[in-house]
């Protein structure tokens, strides 16, 4: 089962483009983003390792079960409510961003509301399924798409237009100290492990966790490419003019002998699948956490396969409400909100890791 942990981590590493992470970092490229990336590698991997190790104390248990046995209801209920909503928002942000990108670059005539309704229906349907089937979906999607992403990155790095002087010029700003915002946005790359909050239910005591040292290495590589490839393509100054900087970067790469010359279409298709997977997984986790608040009984292994209305209801009620509220926001407000969410997420994530670490210590005594 342990390989599924890595699929979750890879998924979050890939999805950062949809969560405005590169645009935010690039905006701050002269005030600490480079150092912020290095700091985020340390902080992110540390959180990941501590969380995963602490959860080893609770084999076959998710966060709701752990909270049930160690925390009083007065703390457990608001905590789960808050975490569940944070998870749902994560999926929602990707859904909104991606539907916007699809509308802009694939078919500007399409009604964005209909597009969103369809995405919500599909993702809710998948998210309402069993946890195991979501893990299996994750495996298929990741295995099918990572080779294409790798091809794209290799192509991008070796392309004639990639300007390493610009990369070096921005790299010279490494001495600027980053602020909390930069670290919190950059550390998003490492967040994949946090989905273990629910999926730990399927990780048995016998499962050995190997290869944790890969997390900082892969994270650094992903952050480096996500930040520096756009700079190499659009220059130290021009890069700041794009809203979805990676979509524009993919549009700047030409693959003469690809199926389609414009790499942007390959890029959009890859990200369609990865976004759907991400939305599904985060909504599933969010719904599972919220479901436990409303149910009296503790979750048991056989519940997973059983059809459950609550998950459907949670996804279907939550997302339309948000989409209606979002109609009052334009792209600018929305992107600012995303950045703010990323910062709140970082603080909550560190807090959650500490809580789980503390509970783990308690359990081992």
């Amino acid at each position: 089962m342990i390989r599924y942990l890595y699929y979750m981590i890879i998924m979050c590493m890939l999805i950062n483009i949809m969560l405005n992470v590169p645009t935010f970092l690039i905006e701050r490229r002269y005030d600490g983003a480079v150092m912020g990336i290095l700091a985020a590698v340390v902080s992110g991997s540390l959180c990941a390792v501590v969380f995963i190790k602490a959860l080893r104390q609770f084999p076959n248990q998710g966060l709701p079960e752990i909270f049930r046995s160690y925390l009083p209801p007065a703390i457990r209920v608001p905590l789960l409510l808050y975490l569940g909503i944070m998870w749902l928002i994560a999926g929602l942000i990707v859904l909104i961003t991606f539907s916007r990108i699809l509308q802009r670059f694939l078919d500007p005539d399409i009604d964005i509301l209909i597009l969103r309704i369809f995405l919500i229906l599909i993702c809710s349907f998948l998210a309402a399924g069993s946890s195991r089937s979501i893990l299996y979906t994750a495996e298929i999607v990741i295995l099918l798409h990572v080779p294409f992403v790798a091809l794209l990155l290799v192509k991008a790095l070796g392309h004639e237009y990639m300007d390493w002087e610009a990369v070096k010029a921005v790299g010279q700003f490494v001495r600027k100290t980053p602020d909390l915002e930069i670290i919190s946005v950059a550390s998003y790359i490492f967040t994949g492990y946090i989905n273990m909050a629910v999926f730990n239910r399927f990780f048995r005591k016998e499962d050995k966790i190997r290869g944790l040292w890969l997390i900082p290495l892969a994270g650094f590589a992903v952050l480096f490419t996500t930040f520096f490839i756009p700079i190499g393509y659009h220059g130290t100054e021009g890069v700041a003019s794009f809203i979805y900087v990676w979509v524009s970067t993919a549009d700047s790469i030409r693959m003469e002998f690809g199926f389609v010359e414009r790499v942007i279409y390959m890029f959009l298709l890859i990200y369609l699948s990865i976004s759907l997977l991400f939305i599904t997984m985060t909504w599933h986790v969010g719904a599972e956490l919220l479901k436990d608040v409303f149910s009296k009984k503790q979750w048991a292994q056989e519940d997973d396969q059983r059809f459950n209305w609550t998950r459907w209801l949670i996804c279907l009620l939550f997302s339309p409400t948000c989409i209606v509220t979002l109609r009052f926001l334009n792209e600018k407000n929305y992107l600012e909100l995303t950045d703010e969410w990323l910062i709140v997420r970082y603080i909550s994530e560190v807090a959650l890791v500490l809580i789980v670490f503390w509970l783990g210590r308690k359990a081992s005594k």
Partner: protein
Amino acid sequence: MNRLLLIGAMILFISGCSGFKDIDKRYFVVGIGVDRTENEQKPYRVTLKLGIPSAKIQPGATNKFELVSEDAASIQEAVRLIKSKVDKELDFGHAKIILFGKTLVSQSIREPLDWFLRRRDIQLIGLVAVGDPSAREILNTSPKSERLPANSLILSLAEEGTESSYIVTESLSDFHRRLTEKGKDPYMPVIRPRNNSYVINQAAVLDKERMVGILTPDQTRVFNELIRKHVQFEFKTVTPKLRYNIAVQNYRIKYKLLHLHSSEPTIQITIKIKGEVEESTAPLFQEDWNKLEELSEEQMRERFVKVLTYLQSKKVDPVGFGLRYRAMGYISEEDWEAWQTLYPRAKFDVRVHIKIIDTGVIK
């Protein structure tokens, strides 16, 4: 029953695609040209080259197109006006060629460029060039060998077909980067019409606002070697005794900025060339190759220095010495201001190392 309901619901949604237009109701724009008019009220003349599809592809016969022009105060207005002149929906998805008229480029490029970057359907891998005398005239040409409208421009500029050391190519994305980058200036190929065909053998160099000069074909070749990493080129060496031409298979260019704080800042450029003799007026095999190499090196050096000093005198830096300066760690505003005074008085120290590999099939 459930399935039927589901299918029924899906059919209901299909009617939502009301904005969709079939391919036979679309006009594919294959080239966009922007020129400057005399009229101050309507300064932009936008010309769209609309491809007319044919059932069978034949060189010289199926490159049919329609050219529509409109003058307006902005590019967007002009495009809207053009829409009222044609019967089909304009589709910019295949607009790979973007031409700017020479008069427009000599005045300002920033303002008209914005529309191209902001539109989602203009591809960033599109190719930009200067049309001399005007963009419209270039778009109006249809070479005999062309199979699809505007295809021969794409073939030459994207290096899919011919690859010449005289043709510099520039994509919209790279042009935008250079236009904004501190320490790297933009350039564009210049296309001129010649009896129903084109000549592309010059390059226009621009500062951050407008064109400041056009290089001669010989300068363009050297310029191309400087800014690109792998062009195939050839050059000739003339000595009192004989003349020979060397075709270069591969070369490497490196540059260093030296003595930046002294009174004589130097830009040192090292070029390593490997090539074979392709043409000669006398047998070469028995000559002293080292001597030949030295002669070529000297003449090559002069060519490079000439182009570099020309660019320097125009106060532009398409090679990116300024960016290198920043990459070396001079990142503050004061450093950048220092570079502005540094670059115009920098000395070029060009070192050429040529290695002749063979003399071709004959001695």
